[in-house]
């Protein structure tokens, strides 16, 4: 366990010391400033938009981190890891921690501001709003980190192709509903793409989260993310270096 924690700290330190987090941090600050410049806001819309931003940020961060990885160091980390099987989960833990950091910013900021300003939202913010909003934001985040990391340079060696694939999946994920509406035969996209816009469909014109639907979206996100992680780890172990 100590071995894994040491690797986690080293990888985390490498990310923090690099410039990877500059653009996402600036994006979050600008987003929060711009988004809440017009008040009052709809509660559901603000959380769902934050989820969408977190998805994009997580795709970017996890993609940057995996592209910055140097095979020679990864080979050594793999050899030093005890147990060896702990190496791959550590990579996920690092991007998950970064995702959580941005998720906390996106959740806590409106909660604090609304407690200071009654007109922050169109209606009073309840604890269930925060709970379900958090679930949707985290669901988007885990989909983002797994998607960005899935097109790893050891799986798709050409960086250009990996970027094209990630952007394609991300764009399709955002606009899958209109596509399925026009072409019902494309319903399988629900399973191929992360459920990042399902929250918008669920809420519709109302400003309330449906608990059952929210939990289903979270379940979908978790299953989707786990599937991507397992397939990726299987491919990386198989393809080696």
């Amino acid at each position, binding site marked *: 366990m*100590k071995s894994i924690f040491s690797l986690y700290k080293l990888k985390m*330190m490498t990310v923090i010391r690099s410039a990877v987090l500059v653009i996402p941090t600036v994006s979050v600050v600008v987003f929060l400033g711009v988004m809440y410049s017009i008040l009052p806001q709809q509660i559901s819309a603000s959380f769902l938009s934050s989820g969408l931003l977190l998805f994009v940020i997580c795709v970017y961060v996890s993609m940057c981190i995996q592209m910055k990885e*140097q095979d020679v160091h990864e080979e050594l980390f*793999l*050899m*030093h890891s005890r147990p060896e099987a702990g190496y791959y989960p550590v990579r996920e833990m690092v991007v998950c921690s970064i995702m959580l950091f941005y998720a906390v910013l996106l959740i806590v900021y409106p909660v604090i501001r609304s407690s200071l300003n009654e007109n922050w939202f169109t209606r009073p913010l309840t604890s269930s709003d925060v709970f379900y909003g958090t679930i949707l934001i985290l669901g988007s985040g885990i989909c983002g980190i797994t998607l960005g990391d899935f097109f790893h340079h050891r799986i798709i060696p050409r960086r250009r192709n990996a970027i094209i694939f990630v952007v394609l999946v991300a764009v399709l994920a955002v606009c899958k509903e209109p596509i399925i509406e026009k072409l019902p035969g494309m319903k399988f996209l629900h399973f191929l793409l992360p459920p990042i816009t399902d929250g918008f469909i669920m809420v519709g014109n109302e400003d309330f989260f449906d608990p059952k639907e929210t939990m289903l979206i979270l379940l979908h996100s978790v299953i989707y993310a786990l599937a991507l992680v397992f397939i990726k780890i299987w491919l990386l172990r198989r393809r080696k*270096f």
Partner: protein
Amino acid sequence: MSDTIVTLESVSKSYNRKTVLDGVSHSFRKGGSIAFAGHNGCGKSTMLKVLAGIVRIDSGRVQYSGKIRFSYVPEKFSGMDVTMGRYLYSIAGMEGVEWSNVRKLVKDFFLEDMFHLKMSQMSKGSLQKVGVIQALMSPHDILLLDEPLSGQDPESQEVFISKVNELREQGITIFMSCHEKKLMDEISDQVYTIEKGKLKSLEGQEESYFRVYVRRNDNLTCWPEMIPRGEKYLLRVAEEQMKETVMKLYCEGWELIGIEEYI
């Protein structure tokens, strides 16, 4: 064979249609020290990676005698966005090694002043030493050395050779890819080259010979064929010369430490 540590069975590996290893079959003994020589791109580094199981082979099989762990000095040890101290501290944490042991290694390799220097700002030779330290701080069953001395100063090279020979005495198996004849002479029992994807012995030593370990008593002059191994010396002796050699060593006053047959 019970003392075999790794066996390659018809191993083939190619990169971009260029065959680097072509149906290589060979068994390597536990505790041996094997060097792979040859021109650039002949497959030395690939051979080390195949032995470590970190590259995927196209066909064949690599078999280990039980659960084997590797230590590895890569050919190109690149910099990271952390300081050398932070990096080594983390590796020591991963291996459960006492930090004081790591500090001693850092001192031995003359890197004490660079603890707080970012690895990405270090010179090639210094970085290579960090690569050596991370492997030597906790040596496992097999030590893989991929051109370990590239860019290192002569003093550090001597330290490296002495440390590796200490590990050999502990029974650690060593595989090395290198160009320096001096290094091969001082560290390796056997030297192979890879030609057109095939493994070839450079010494024709497929026949058996004996490894005789001796310790020097005062005022004795070393024989030219003696290879230093820490405080000991190694002699390679053909079977038919064994009796005569041992007698000569005894008469001169050498302390005989051990004899092992090498096939």
